[in-house]
């Protein structure tokens, strides 16, 4: 594409696929960019053979029909020359130029090579989220993964990363991850849920608003019962044991703050994989680079502020999916459709036709999501009885003791100061893994969330690539 793109959609998950499909109805210069080799994002992550014609729907997927419909729409648009899909391409940085155009700096994923700049009149940002992690003794042992990582492994490799898996943290996603393990032939030792789920009762009505969710949940529940998987409420992992890798896991009762209650420990033997998940953290670096307004959502996530058209505070930048709040795949599709239409409408100057159906789906999913977040809060008390020697920043190996010393003795009271004094968050993952933990050490939660989410590059680039970068359109 040599001219300026009308709409660039970043991310080919549920939100991005829907946005691209809708945008291509209103514009013939649409580009869909995703870091992964295939369409689908996290939710419809799959292997190469699942894309073959007549391939059966993978058994761990929900809403696969929707995926196939969106894929068909995109293939048609591509054949008609209205849309182009750049696979394995990462948007490393996003600038708002003085002339109002948006500049996207693209590099190959995952090598970070071949930097090119692409100009766009509008961008629909749908970068999704990754698992929120919290430190626990032993979490650096091989075999400890993010719950989402366990599921992604199943979706792509079609096998379980181990034999006997323990899932722990909070939220319905633990059920989804457990289901994929069982469907791929693995064993689930237990699911530890830190909350007691009473939160669902007064707001139970919200679940009824989204029938698909109820159905998905009922299927998981049936599967867990059939496999006799214990679902333990108010239980947290208090220590992971093992020499070279995970061998056994100590779990404890959780108090109201989600902190382990001393003296209630119980050991689960013969575990080789632990999947930990405390909800999701939206990938906000491009949002912050563009300078768009952000806020804290019910679950403590930093999300972009949008209007009814999914427009951010930056003219031409639209947001859809997890970046506006973690609501799940169907909500993401509804938001994507609205955003794609609005972006194409902004370029053509024709007001987007509003769809009542998408708007009401969006509100139903948002209501459901806030009820879910309230029922499954990331525990405020995670550090209350954590061992002082527990590593918080895995990349730079910074312990809880070092962080509290920097806070108490050196007066470092926010994540940025703590990072400067201890190096927590300065390593290879650029604070993605320790972000949730470090945010808790701040006194101003919004500022702390922004600080830990700020990254000048969404993907590390080689110096050779940067040295040969040229400004201009691709």
């Amino acid at each position, binding site marked *: 594409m040599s001219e300026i793109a009308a709409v660039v959609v970043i991310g080919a998950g549920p939100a991005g696929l829907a946005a691209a499909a809708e945008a291509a109805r209103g514009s013939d210069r649409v580009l869909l960019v995703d870091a992964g080799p295939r369409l689908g994002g996290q939710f419809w992550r799959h292997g190469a053979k699942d894309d073959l014609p007549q391939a059966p729907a993978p058994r761990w997927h929900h809403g696969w029909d929707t995926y196939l419909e969106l894929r068909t729409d995109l293939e048609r648009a591509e054949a008609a020359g209205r849309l182009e899909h750049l696979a394995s391409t990462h948007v490393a*940085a996003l*600038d708002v130029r003085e002339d109002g155009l948006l500049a996207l*700096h693209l590099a190959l994923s995952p090598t*970070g090579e071949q930097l090119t*700049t692409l100009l766009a009149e509008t961008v629909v940002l749908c970068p999704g989220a990754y698992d929120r992690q919290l430190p626990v003794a032993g979490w650096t042992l091989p075999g400890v993964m993010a719950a989402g990582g366990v599921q992604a492994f199943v979706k792509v490799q079609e096998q379980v990363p181990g034999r006997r898996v323990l899932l722990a943290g909070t939220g319905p996603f633990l059920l989804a991850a457990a289901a994929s393990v069982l469907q791929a032939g693995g064993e689930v030792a237990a699911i530890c849920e830190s909350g007691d789920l009473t939160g669902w009762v007064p707001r139970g009505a919200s679940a009824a608003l989204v029938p698909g969710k109820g159905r998905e949940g009922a299927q998981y529940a049936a599967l867990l019962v059939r496999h006799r998987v214990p679902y333990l409420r108010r239980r947290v992992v208090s220590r992971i044991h093992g020499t070279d890798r995970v061998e056994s896991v100590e779990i404890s009762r959780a108090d109201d703050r989600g902190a382990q209650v001393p003296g209630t420990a119980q050991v689960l033997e013969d575990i080789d994989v632990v999947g930990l998940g405390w909800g999701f953290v939206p990938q906000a670096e491009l949002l912050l*680079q563009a300078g768009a307004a952000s806020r804290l959502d019910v679950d403590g996530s930093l999300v972009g502020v949008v209007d009814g058209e999914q427009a951010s505070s930056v003219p031409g930048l639209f947001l859809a999916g997890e970046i506006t709040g973690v609501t799940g795949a169907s909500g993401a599709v509804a938001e994507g459709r609205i955003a794609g239409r609005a972006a194409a409408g902004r370029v053509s100057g024709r007001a987007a036709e509003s769809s009542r159906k998408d708007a009401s789906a969006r509100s139903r999913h948002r209501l459901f999501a806030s009820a879910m977040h309230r029922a499954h809060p990331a525990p405020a008390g995670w550090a209350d009885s954590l061992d002082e020697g527990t590593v918080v920043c895995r*990349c*730079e190996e910074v312990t809880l003791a070092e962080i509290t010393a*920097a806070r108490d*003795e*050196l*007066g*470092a*009271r*926010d994540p*940025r*100061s703590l990072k*400067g*004094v201890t*190096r927590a968050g*300065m*390593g*290879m993952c*650029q604070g993605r893994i320790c972000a949730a933990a470090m945010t808790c050490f701040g006194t101003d939660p919004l500022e702390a969330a922004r600080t830990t989410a700020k*990254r*000048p*590059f969404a993907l*590390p*680039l*080689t*110096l*050779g690539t*940067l*040295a*040969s*970068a040229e*400004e201009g359109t691709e």
Partner: protein
Amino acid sequence: MTARGTDVLVIGAGAVGAAVAHYCTLQGLSVRVVDRGAPGGGTSSRCEGNILVSDKERGPELDLANYSLALWHGELAEHAESWELERKGGIIVASRETSLVSLRRALTAQREHGIEVQEIDAEALLALEPHVSPGAVGAAFYPDDSQVMPMQVVAHLLALARGRGAEVLPYCEVTGLMREGERIIGARTTRGDLPAGAVVDAAGPWAARFSALAGVHLPIAPRRGYVMVTEPLPPRVFHKVYAAEYIDDVGTSDTSLQSSPVVESTPAGSILIGSSREQVGFSDAISREALQRIAANATALFPFLRDVHVLRHYHGFRPYSPDHLPAIGADARATGLWHATGHEGAGIGMSVGTGKLLAQALAGHRPDLDLDPFDPARFGDAAPAGGPR
């Protein structure tokens, strides 16, 4: 609300403000430090921690650099570990015969000033830095060039000062000054009035704005610089390595973008790559051109860097002074006002010397170095509107 008064009120908790606070408490003065943000949140956390003599020309700046260097390795040596002080040595690499000639000229002058420096040939250079570009024609080696971790310097100097009774107030912005007649007797802040015997401007690149509150002209301007940080690597760069062109950039007053490489490794294994100089006000708009040039220069100096990943970049605003000298001492134009600012690209290295000298003056002693060359009033009053800038 008016708080209890202190002998000294320091405005700005950067490296310079922290050093002033530390040395004032050593003089037995009561001290309060305020910053509108978190301590160390200004330029002192957006820079590199070089303590250099190699880039200085003879004159008061070199004297202050040498004085500071002696403090870092002398009376402050017991804290070396807490701020990761390391005497790494600096190497200036010449890649062309012409730059070698100017480098030699600089060496001779520096040697006369007592700086320890050796000229080394291409072979000796490769022995010291095996991964440097084979195209280098010669180099100069400065064994005294050192490095600290700036944020740790700020945190620990403030902790030392607090240990002797100083009070540090973060998130406290100075919005005006308290006066008694012509005399400045404290500051008005977002956390109330803070009376003090002396108010010290350590506001770094914001010193001009702060001084304007006090009604005096101090032409300190922001000079932006970028630094890139690589993924952690096994050690492959052993000294602080610069290109000979760096010295020229430091000395110019050109406002357009200049860039020459400064490459050094950190104890965490990441390599820091600096740096650019440009005057664009306090703009945070990313300059892709600056990043491209820094990368091109660094890979020319160390070809292996081509395949190394950059994890992030950051930028800071050096407190630039038109004559390249900081403003240190009492302001003759406003009784009660003192300055310690304008160190441009060397405020970390020279922070401790500045702090000690200013504390001596504040305590009524004769400072170890003559402060006249740093007289804050030397810039005179603001140029008349429409006149030359």
